[in-house]
């Protein structure tokens, strides 16, 4: 089992009346009204300290995501933090993966720069980079970056193909795309890893995405938005593995990763006492405070997908954010004693056949000392019980850097012909 610590970078000091006064934690939230620059300075610094703490505590990788104009994750370009972590871990001799989860390719207007920056991080880290390529959330790709929703997917496809070629072609090449052009793509540096860093695709369950990942031998990261994994994630992984079987593709669990928020205390009651207010901050003022019209825009979802989406019951408007108890009961987060947490996570890993967990251990207003406590408890009381899972596949993990014990990416990954995520 591979365990990645994922860092979000929230502003941790929003006032109690934030949700009442402001309709969202993205796009329109007023910076000067909300932020003290010294507190923000400390939040950015603490986030990197926390990631370093996780690296020292023995996580297999530390990861970052991309979110612009956001107060729940102040990370307009995760390459910035990843570069800092790559250098700092290198300086300390920590053999830990740097996992970008990643650069949003539906948003990016400079794909060559993405290829070049990631290659730089791969190079300075001596081949410890893992590259995740999500499409990007609507508010970020379409509203912040101004990409017409109906072009998001096409831009993703083209950027993905261009980055793979930029990473793998030995000679400079011309690129005449619909969204970008260059007479000579010749990035410096090329990636340290050969043929290229492990690549994973982040999805929310569209079968076309899982099929694409399987066809190309890419990793697949599932990020579910707000549902019990036993209900939301289970059918997605079931369908992925039966698809793999039909396609004659091995059922190696390291192909699959899922994201999960984890809060560990000495006991279940202790966890609630330690974390409830920070989780509730996260759910009411952070990730949970993004309206639906920021996540779905006309043109961004196919007609078929729209019919499925619109046939579902409409949730009542203005629901209060779930409480800690509701969030735990509904499976939105995994929280409690080490025993509670490891049993739940082991159950997810076994029943979904997932070889990688992407673990969020800082939420909302949680201060650095408490985050470190959560990291330490997870690393000492939970991780050792999860590590042996799927060890029979350790010799064939093509989704992990060679420098960290993985196997090289297969030729199918680097083959750019027909690289289309439809």
């Amino acid at each position: 089992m591979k365990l990645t610590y994922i860092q979000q970078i929230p502003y941790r000091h929003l006032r109690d009346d934030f949700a009442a006064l402001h309709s969202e934690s993205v796009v329109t939230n007023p910076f000067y009204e909300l932020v003290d620059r010294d507190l923000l300075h400390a939040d950015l610094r603490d986030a990197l300290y926390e990631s370093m703490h996780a690296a020292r505590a023995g996580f297999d990788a530390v990861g970052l995501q991309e979110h612009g104009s956001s107060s729940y994750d102040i990370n307009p370009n995760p390459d910035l933090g990843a570069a800092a972590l790559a250098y700092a871990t290198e300086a300390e001799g920590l053999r830990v993966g740097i996992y970008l989860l990643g650069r949003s390719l539906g948003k990016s207007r400079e794909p060559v720069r993405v290829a070049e920056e990631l290659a730089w991080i791969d190079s300075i880290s001596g081949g410890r980079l893992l590259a995740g390529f999500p499409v990007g959330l609507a508010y970020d790709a379409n509203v912040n970056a101004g990409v017409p929703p109906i072009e998001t997917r096409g831009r993703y496809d083209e950027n993905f193909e261009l980055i793979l070629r930029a990473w793998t072609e030995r000679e400079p090449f011309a690129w005449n795309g619909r969204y970008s052009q260059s007479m000579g793509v010749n990035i410096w540096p090329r990636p340290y890893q050969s043929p290229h860093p492990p690549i994973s695709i982040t999805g929310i369950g569209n079968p076309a995405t899982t099929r694409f990942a399987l066809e190309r031998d890419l990793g697949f990261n599932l990020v579910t938005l707000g549902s019990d994994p036993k209900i939301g994630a289970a059918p997605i992984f079931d369908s992925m593995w039966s698809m793999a079987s039909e396609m004659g593709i091995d059922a190696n669990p390291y192909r699959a990763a899922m994201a999960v928020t984890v809060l560990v205390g000495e006991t279940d009651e202790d966890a609630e006492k330690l974390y409830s207010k920070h989780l509730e901050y996260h759910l009411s003022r952070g990730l949970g405070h993004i309206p639906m019209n920021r996540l779905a825009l006309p043109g961004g979802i196919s007609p078929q997908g729209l019919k499925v989406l619109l046939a579902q019951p409409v949730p009542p408007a203005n629901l209060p954010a779930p409480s800690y108890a509701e969030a735990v009961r509904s499976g939105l987060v995994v929280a409690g004693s080490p025993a509670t947490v490891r049993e739940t996570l082991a159950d997810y890993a076994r029943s979904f056949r997932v070889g990688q967990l992407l673990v969020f251990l800082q939420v909302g207003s949680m201060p650095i000392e408490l985050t470190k406590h959560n990291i330490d408890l997870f690393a000492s009381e939970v991780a050792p019980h999860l590590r042996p899972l799927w060890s029979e596949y350790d010799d064939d993990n093509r989704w992990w850097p060679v420098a960290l014990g993985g196997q090289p990416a297969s030729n199918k990954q680097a083959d750019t012909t027909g690289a289309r995520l439809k």
Partner: protein
Amino acid sequence: MTSQITMETQTVSVWGDQITLQFKVFGTGPALVYLHPLGGFVRDDFLDDLARTHTIYAPELPGTSEDDPFAIHKVNDIPELVLIYEEAFGKLGLRGAPVIGQSFGGMLAAELASFFPDLFEKVALLGPAGLWFEDKPWTLDILTAPPSEAPNLLFSDPSADRPRAMLALPDDPKAAVDALAHLVWIQGCGAKFLWPVPDRGLSRRLHRVTAPVLVVWGEDDRIIPSSYAAEYGARVPGSAVHVLPKSGHIPQVEQMEETLALVSDFLSNP
């Protein structure tokens, strides 16, 4: 009235046979081109009245016809869209006909008349998009706001009969879902030419228009402010500009009789 005039669908292959453009065709008399708004082609009383004296040809934006949603991916930008429509009008013998364009369709009509000044005999623009200036900003909230806010954005009085009829969804739940899914998708198709700031440079081309132009705007337009009526007027010399009270973004629905009178006069005057 609707049932008395049969409507047929004509198709024309354009753009190197990559796109089959669909036209809704109905009415009797000389040809009249109608370019639909962002919400797609909807037949209404205004069009049915015009259909008594004209044969209406209403092309559907690629991607908005029920059977070919992905045709939109074959059109990159406004110049390509203009060439596609111009080619289709040529193949159907519609060059020299008058055109009416509403909102998104109004922008498209103005673009066509700017690129090809001889294409239309007359150009009637009803609350057209296409211009955007910093001192009178307008948004694409109609695309991003919750559906419950649409009536207030679209209409001066959303409780009136015609606005309510226009926004009504089918009673059957499955048909309602299909209709709404279709509407959301076709809005996304049009948004390709408006997003993120609805300005593709029309203000720099409008001076090329030589056909007579009629501009009709709803005074209470909460999507594109009616002050843009004068902006069109200033950029197209000789154009006739009318701002109608008690109308929001769709004067052909909310002030149907008056809009019809203005358009009919404009079409019949030599």
